């Protein structure tokens, strides 16, 4: 068992499972509709700013699989699985696409507001601007098309969600989500990121959040 072998297996796993989750999301949503329990499924689209200077967007979905209600206080939380796909333009000369999958906990504050803490793992692919040249073993220069690097990412987010209209039930929420994430291995270490995202989420099965 070597570190490189572990990373290879992890990479293969992360390539497979998140892809299955992405295609399974609509299935989950449909299945949720048939369940008697009110567990909202959310799809969201967010515009993001990755400090300093990267702009992009993310689309994703969160599917709850377990609800917990505190009988004494009435507080409710949902445990969710999520996946998302996104793209960033970086001013330091590359574009990146990424795919994450993970889990989170939604804390239902009221019918109009809930917060969510989430953790995810994923893949991050950079594509460099302009032409990329490589020095060959014979000293010649050749061009590499669509060249970039693959990285792993680990992300921790906290999102604040507010129903847009006061009438109930209404499926639209405003979503504000700061996050911290690591890109690795970057020059044999980690590259830290802090991002702020904002956008809308849609409650797919139309149920009230509470």
């Amino acid at each position, binding site marked *: 068992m070597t570190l490189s072998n572990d990373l290879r297996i992890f990479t293969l796993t992360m390539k497979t499972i998140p892809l299955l989750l992405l295609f399974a999301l609509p299935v989950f949503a449909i299945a949720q509709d048939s369940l008697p329990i009110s567990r909202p499924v959310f799809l969201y689209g967010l515009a993001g700013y990755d400090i300093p200077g990267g702009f992009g967007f993310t689309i994703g979905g969160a599917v709850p699989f377990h609800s917990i209600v505190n009988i004494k206080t009435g507080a409710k939380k949902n445990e969710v699985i999520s996946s998302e796909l996104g793209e960033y333009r970086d001013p*330091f000369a590359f574009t990146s*696409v990424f795919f994450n999958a993970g889990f989170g906990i939604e804390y239902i504050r009221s019918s109009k507001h809930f917060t969510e803490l989430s953790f995810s793992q994923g893949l991050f692919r950079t594509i460099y601007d302009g*032409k990329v*040249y490589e020095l060959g073993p014979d000293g010649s220069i050749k061009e590499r098309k669509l060249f970039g690097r*693959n990285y792993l990412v680990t992300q921790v987010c906290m999102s604040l969600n507010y129903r847009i209209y006061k009438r109930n039930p209404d499926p639209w929420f405003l979503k504000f989500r700061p996050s911290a994430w690591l890109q690795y291995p970057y020059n044999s*270490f980690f*590259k830290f990121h802090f991002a702020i995202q904002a956008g809308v989420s849609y409650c797919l099965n139309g149920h009230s959040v509470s």
Partner: protein
Amino acid sequence: MKCICANIFVFLLCLFFIGCKKEFAGLSANANDIVWVTNNGADMPVRIKGNTASHIVILIVHGGPGDGSYSYVDYKTARLRERYAVAFWDQRNAGSAAGNNNLDKLNLPQMIDDLGAVVKVLKLRYEGADIYLYAHSFGGLLAAGYLVKDSNQDQIRGWIDIDGAHNYALCDTSSRKMLIDTGRSEINKGNYISQWQSILNYCNAHDPLSSYAISSQIENYAHTAEEYMGIKQNNSIFSIAEDPSALLTNYYNLYNTSAGNNFLESLESANYSDQLYKIKIPSLLLWGQYDFVVPPKVGQDAFANLASSYKKLILFSHSGHHPMETETDAVEDEIINFIETFQ
């Protein structure tokens, strides 16, 4: 079904943005090109700005090691970019240079090879252009190592060496001597007495050639000594143009990992003084008179050993280790006059 189609549509939209890449638009008086050079695990950006139509490219070989090149994209090269093209190259594990697991490949011979690759790319891309190396501090060591090797200097029209450290041991010993001599003089004048006394006590008690830790401490004193001589320094941790996250990672690698420290220690024995006779291309040596980090004695050593057909050493009397910051106009004038001499 609608949900799946919507997901696919948005995914395709993502791919559209991936296509926003800058392509080479030919020569221009106001170019803003970007290329990447990937070599043995390091992906190094080279941003070319300025007048590419001049057929003259000044390649920045930045110092550090570990500093980026993008901090030069300001007033320090403004006039140069009006007249010529300036190529800002981030060396491996510096600036915005990227890669996966590559720290084990961080060594001087590899970096010299990287410089060779960048020069080849610039030659390919700007066919017929004259390339000048603008090398500062550690970049001077890198440039010297490149120019003395094989027939590399045939690719270069001229060498602009700004406080270049082509001989690290000479830097250490002359730095210590300059700190001691200047310290005594300044104490006699009553300037920053306690600060200079601390420096004197340390330098008198330690030999920088005995360990990397002592050499590093003397270098720290050398940087602060400039302030005591009234040289205004740019003390910002990061240039606003740099990617601070990438810089943090690269600095961490250099100063907090064994591989990074091994690389820095290996530089202590780097010395090209006895090979500079191989360099015959025109050379311009620009030095700050109050550079305690790479003292003027190192510049004099380079001047004495170079076999260049044309060589010139200029001392800037109001500058320390960064004359391009403190006497920008004078430095740019010298560079322009140097380049124009050979056009």
